[in-house]
């Protein structure tokens, strides 16, 4: 049986610090095919960016302990030397960062920065790289690309800078594109334009896309599959539709409940998830979400199992996995009576 296009297997990323080991990612596994979009959702510190940076080999071996396997098109990226990895980075795998202003060098013309990415992987004269850059700028919707190619980053608006980042990421026709919160810093109208653009480019180049975001609305728009991360682990994994309609892990349900909507009733108060995420140095023994979970008492009456035993990531129906001891997620959707009865 052939491997999926991208297969992350048991990925572990730990950062040793004077205060203890920060367990940023603990045994993460997922797969992704070309032309598909995987949404990764989670709060700051859930490990969504750290695990994705590992695919690009961005963690320095001196300060990060990375283990597991990342198979991309038949090659285990984690087994490569720095030199070999450099060939893949930017060529097969590219990344769009959240803040284009800090990801672009303020002293260099945007055209030169994009062309540099091209020349790093193609042995071509500057003139050819420049033509290719102008082509790419036009493709991402920058007006007058032959003139704007010589502008500096500060001469672009936020949305335009993000387009420049996308042009830079796509110039080598990568087969895997990782977008780390690409629209968080943008206005909704610009966000809509960028999401449209990413989807158009994805269908054109048949790229596999990983969309890292904390915005469930964005997930609903673009993702085929969704991976929900909490404290360095996948806690729920399934198709976007299934996961948004029938979430089976209390954290996912909490996220969905805590965001207001542009339609629907207005007078009900928001239901925030109480508390804050756990420490990654001393994570809870059992389920990492247990200290904030209102449903643990429904598991065995005292919540002791959740406190002591880490649940496995198991299928609830085919293709929909959850890491939770709660057997019947339906009880979450009911209003509080089941909970109150338990208390």
């Amino acid at each position, binding site marked *: 049986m052939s491997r999926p296009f991208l297969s992350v297997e048991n990925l572990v990323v730990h950062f040793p610090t004077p205060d203890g080991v920060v367990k940023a990612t603990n045994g993460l596994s997922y797969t992704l095919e070309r032309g598909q979009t995987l949404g990764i959702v989670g709060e700051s510190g859930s490990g969504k960016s750290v695990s994705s940076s590992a695919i690009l080999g961005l963690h320095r071996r001196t300060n990060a302990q990375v283990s597991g396997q990342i198979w991309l098109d038949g090659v285990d990226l984690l087994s490569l030397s720095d030199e070999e990895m450099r060939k893949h980075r930017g060529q097969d795998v590219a990344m769009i960062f959240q803040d284009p202003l800090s990801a672009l060098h303020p002293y260099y013309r945007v055209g030169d920065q994009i062309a540099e990415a091209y020349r790093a992987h193609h042995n071509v004269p500057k003139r050819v790289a420049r033509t290719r850059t102008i082509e790419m700028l036009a493709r991402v919707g920058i007006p007058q690309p032959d003139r704007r190619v010589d502008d500096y980053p500060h001469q672009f608006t936020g949305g335009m800078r993000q387009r420049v980042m996308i042009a830079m990421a796509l110039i080598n026709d990568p087969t895997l594109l990782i977008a780390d919160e690409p629209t968080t810093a943008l206005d909704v109208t610009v966000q809509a334009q960028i999401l449209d653009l990413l989807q158009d480019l994805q269908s054109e180049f048949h790229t596999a896309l990983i969309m890292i975001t904390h915005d*469930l609305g964005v997930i609903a728009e673009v993702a085929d599959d969704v991976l929900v991360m909490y404290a360095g682990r996948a806690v729920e994994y399934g198709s976007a539709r299934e996961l948004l309609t029938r979430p089976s892990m209390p954290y996912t349900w909490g996220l969905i409940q805590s965001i207001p909507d542009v339609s629907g009733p207005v007078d009900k*108060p928001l239901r925030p998830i109480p508390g804050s995420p756990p420490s990654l140095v001393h994570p809870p023994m059992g389920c990492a979400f247990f200290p904030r979970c209102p449903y643990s008492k429904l598991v065995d009456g005292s919540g002791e199992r959740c406190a002591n035993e880490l649940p496995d990531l198991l299928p609830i129906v085919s293709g929909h996995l959850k890491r939770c001891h709660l057997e019947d997620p339906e009880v979450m959707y009911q209003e509080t009576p089941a909970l109150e009865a338990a208390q």
Partner: protein
Amino acid sequence: MTTTPLLDVRDLVMHFPVKSRGIISRTVGHVKAVDGVSFTLGAGQALGLVGESGSGKTTTGRLVTRLQKPTSGQILFEGQDIADASPRQLKPLRRDIQMIFQDPYTSLNPRQTVGEIVGAPLEIHNLVPKSKRLARVQELLEIVGLNPEHYNRYPHEFSGGQRQRIGIARALTLQPKILVADEPVSALDVSIQAQVINLMQDLQREFNIAFLFIAHDLAIVRHFCPEIAVMYLGKIVERAPREELYSAPKHPYTKALLSAVPDVEQARIGGRRERIRLTGDVPSPINPPSGCRFRTRCWKAQDVCATQEPPLEPKGASTGVAACHFPEP
């Protein structure tokens, strides 16, 4: 008899001069950040200000708090015009109008303890004797849901959500009548946003505080504010009760803005709303388009839109107002 609203802003204008480069700098133009904005806010009410970056919503907030002096226009607070007030005249007003900032990381002094940060307003206004300040600070920390024993900790020891609570506690110290909240939750994680929103709503009810709520997240504004004003290039283009604004927007810009919001609910029922693609960027506020400022991106624009600026007036049977020659039905 008409009662005076708590805050009555009339024709507020803020033009920032643009200087030429060189040794002798001349004013070569003005950034028309806010250009004739009027609204009222009653005690204990909440008005939402939404718009894209550069629409002037933040500047409006900074003018209301008088962190900046407007170019012209009136800001009537309890009937008294504070637009031209001197720093000395402003000092007592600062007690009544306070602000919550967007970024909980840069808006708190890292070298001050939480007690110093929250207690500073008491010291400046000399309201509570020194011996009783700590008790008041602890009371405030408790109100915003922080451990009162943590008064001697520094901001870096708190998470983003907790820091925003510290910022709120500081704003509450002087028992203000108006809180200007500029993107108060956009820097926070989703699960924490709801906690802070609920906290602000509780405070609004308990202390009868009026909120000027500035945000670009339309869903959160809808949740928080019964009335919402939409800004575009320094002007209010539509102001309406939320039920009307979200179900039947009159201004094409409002319609486009709403259609751009990704909606979880829609994806769940399998549908996808028709999205209006706004092309291009917001024009420069130095040289805004003549007539209606939205006309360069509007799909309904006709000749009249370039020559005549549409007034902000009621359209059809709605209670809200919109500035458009060809409003949506």
